[in-house]
């Protein structure tokens, strides 16, 4: 695939396959979840792979559970490698999280204790991933409700240590960053400031919702991927684009998929942010040239 500069697209979802195919011209790329290719039948897989002839695809995973403290499932990884090749994807991304342990699969992303020791374990696993997957590996920041009491590193320090040691890029989910900052009370722009220039290779944008938890007696933001992206997440995207050149910006939507106009509106809002940042850059470059 030709790597588009800030290509804007959506996460491919089988439930809106027909609509997606009719609207390919509206997107620069699609993100395919490799695990969906594993669970569907062969003809559906073939249909997804066939999309590679029509639009650039990038590969995303949800089933690696890189944070589970057991050796990586190499059979799973090899299947991912095969799918990534068939998608002709320029990168493969996964979450810095764990979802399962032997005999139990929560199928939900959980945070890790953010310590040097856990970082070392993840670094070793990423090197294994990189040795078996033919394209660059990207790590994604997750949203989380709880933290481990023995965590010593901040979110951004934990990511920086791991990405710095492995050369893995960052798939920055700006919605997750926004949710975590709101739910746990930190400044998301300080997080962004602490990232090395150019680390962000892809971006996820999504829209969650406010959940009032009567049992907890408080409300919090949940990453439901069901609603339009909040303005605050797009503001973060704008800040990201000022210092990074992600190849892909992907809108994630997993619920209320019939609200396709909301999807298109969000894509348009993302494109507007990209355009405004790029036009700002052009303006700065022309001013620089004039000054020279």
């Amino acid at each position, binding site marked *: 695939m030709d790597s588009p500069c800030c290509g804007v697209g959506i996460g491919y979802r089988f439930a809106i396959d027909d609509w997606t195919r009719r609207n390919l011209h509206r997107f620069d790329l699609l993100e395919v979840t490799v695990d969906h290719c594993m669970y569907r039948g062969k003809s*559906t897989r073939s249909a997804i792979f066939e999309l590679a002839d029509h639009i650039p695809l990038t590969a995303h995973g949800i089933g690696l559970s890189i944070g*589970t403290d057991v050796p990586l499932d190499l059979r799973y990884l090899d299947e991912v490698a095969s799918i990534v090749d068939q998608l002709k994807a320029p990168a493969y991304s996964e979450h810095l999280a764990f*979802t399962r342990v032997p005999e139990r699969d*929560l199928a939900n992303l*959980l945070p890790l204790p953010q310590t040097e020791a856990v970082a070392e374990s993840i670094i070793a696993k990423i090197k294994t991933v990189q040795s078996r997957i033919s394209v660059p590996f990207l790590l994604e920041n997750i949203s989380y409700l*709880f933290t481990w*009491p023995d965590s010593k590193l901040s979110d951004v320090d934990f990511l920086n240590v791991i990405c710095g040691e492995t050369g893995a890029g960052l798939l920055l989910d700006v919605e997750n960053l926004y949710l975590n900052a709101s739910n746990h009370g930190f400044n998301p722009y300080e997080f962004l400031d602490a990232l090395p220039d150019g680390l962000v290779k892809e971006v996820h944008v999504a829209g969650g919702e406010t959940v009032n938890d009567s049992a907890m007696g408080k409300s919090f933001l949940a990453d439901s991927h069901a609603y339009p992206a909040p303005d605050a997440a797009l503001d973060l995207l704008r800040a990201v684009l000022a210092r990074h050149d992600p190849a892909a910006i992907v809108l994630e939507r997993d619920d209320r998929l019939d609200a396709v106009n909301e999807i298109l509106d969000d894509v348009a809002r993302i494109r507007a942010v990209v355009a405004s940042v790029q036009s700002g850059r052009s303006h700065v470059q022309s001013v620089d040239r004039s000054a020279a």
Partner: protein
Amino acid sequence: MSNRLIDRQLSLLEYLTSGAAIFGSPCVNVDHTCSGIESGLLDREARFSFDKRMGKVRAVLPLTVALIENNAIAVLQEFVEACPPKDIGQFANALQFSDFLRARARRAPLAPPYVVDVAACELALARVRLRVDEPRPMAESCGRHGAIRRHPDAVFVSCTYDVRSVFEVTGEPSPPEERNTFVAVSIPQGAEAPQLFEMNAVLFDLLSSCHMWADLSVFGATGEREDLVHDLVNSGLVEVR
């Protein structure tokens, strides 16, 4: 208390998939390795994860889940304790729930009593939808009759209630009648979605076991079998060559 990360992760997932965390059930030990994490947040995470899991079950078994709604909490609490989540996929979670309902119904009555049959038929519909994704060699046309076998994509379900009315999309469904009903699920020729067919017991037994190519004569005398085989082929229940 072990400080190994895997032990702490095992304890955490054991708690997050427990009735204590999801429903606030009493009498369940909260492992001390979870201490230090606010229990309210863990319980919220557990409920969120369970809602996601039941969303997967509901995607495959919508009628089943709707039918047990009145006594859902009790049934779901038993499900949670008996069947920890083991797979990320929709079908795997639905299969686990259907198997649980079947086992549960053997121990004590379930309401409504036909819900197990509805689950079996919904699962069969999903199984057919998934199987037809697998490309298979096309059967030769009816013009060269000689051998027959059940269509590899068809699924056969033996029910104790006639639950077909539950699947009717128009009108108020009539309550299912208690009678042994033999249901085949397949995609008829020219159709896009799988359908339910009732079969008589003899044909059901014959087709259920007819995985290998068999001589057409198993379907009786030439005159009557032509129409039968034609109907079965059109219904997507058999292949002939």
